């Protein structure tokens, strides 16, 4: 079938400025949008620039806006699209470096700000630290995050103000706050108890819809809010 690909273009090294290019391609219904981009890059215009690696939705390289919503290019099939014209734009709220490539630095800076690592200063036992399957499942959802930035860049609060740590950072804080083996929950809650922390979240839910790993992002944020409010990790 024939698909029209309308792709956002911007190259700082030419003087065309930002614009859209349209490519008409022959595609299978089971092709990924990423396959379409590859087809353009390989056969039509090698200057088209985007990130990708795994091609099956687990590395988090290729978050872009497809027909107005954040998605991984490798996880949307042509048959899932409602229209035969596909509009492709970079994710919002980060500086565009070239075509679909954005500067991820602010995103990772926020990630790093919430102590996204395991803290337990007790001397470890000879073997593993024990954890029941129930305790393990408490934070399973948020361990799935691949740091693709789909959520944070779909959040109007983040568009408005890039100092907001963003849902992704909160998800990664949640991963440790609710880990029964971890000891730094209080510090993380303190960090997020800030005007640029959880209070910037106005329950808009774009993040939950955008997450390719089907993480209940807003729920994670809500649980962190509640933990701050009550001092309890339920």
């Amino acid at each position, binding site marked *: 079938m024939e698909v029209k690909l309308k792709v956002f273009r911007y190259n700082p090294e030419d003087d065309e400025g930002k614009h859209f290019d349209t490519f008409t391609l022959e595609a299978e219904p089971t092709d990924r949008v990423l396959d379409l981009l590859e087809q353009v890059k390989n056969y039509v215009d090698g200057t088209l620039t985007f990130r990708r690696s795994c091609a099956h939705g687990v590395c988090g390289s290729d978050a872009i806006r497809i027909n107005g919503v954040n998605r991984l290019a490798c996880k949307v099939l042509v048959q899932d699209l409602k229209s035969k014209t596909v509009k492709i734009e970079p994710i*919002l709220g980060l500086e565009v*470096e070239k075509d679909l490539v954005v500067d991820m630095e602010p995103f990772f800076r926020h990630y790093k700000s919430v102590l996204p690592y395991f803290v337990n200063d007790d001397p470890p036992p000879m073997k593993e630290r024990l954890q029941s399957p129930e305790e393990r499942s408490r934070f399973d959802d948020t361990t799935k995050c691949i740091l693709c930035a789909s959520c944070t860049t779909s959040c*109007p609060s983040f*568009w*408005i103000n890039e100092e907001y740590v963003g849902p992704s950072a909160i998800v990664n804080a949640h991963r440790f706050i609710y880990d029964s083996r971890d000891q730094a929950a209080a510090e993380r809650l303190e960090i997020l108890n800030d005007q640029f922390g959880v209070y910037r979240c106005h*329950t808009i839910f*774009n993040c939950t819809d955008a997450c390719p790993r089907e993480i209940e992002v*807003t729920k994670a944020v809500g649980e962190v809010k509640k933990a701050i409010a009550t001092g309890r990790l339920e």
Partner: protein
Amino acid sequence: MTLDRKVGLLAGLRYKGGGPMLAWILHRITGLGMIVFIALHVIASLLGGDIGIAINTVYQSLYFQLFVVFGIIFHGVNGLRIIVLDLWPKFIEYQRESTWLEWFIILPVYGLTAFVMISRFLAGE
């Protein structure tokens, strides 16, 4: 050179968020709207006189009232939804349903009120 990160209002609105995004936008607008409404009203009462009457005519006009009533109903119901989700995060799993439910409450209540208001207006009250 990179393109600025700024997301313009239009670019933001073009993002295909779902019902909750719309709810947030409306919540903001109605919240601010109500402040404007109170401010107008208080100023009018304080000033009195011609200006006061002028302002009062504006906010007593049907259109403005229709807007204010919608704002109050929407902001109240949506606010309650947010409060429930915030205080009991486990309900977030039912957020889709909660958004439906919200409109399920708002639309009839507002419809009824608007109907009464308009019919009274037409009756010349």
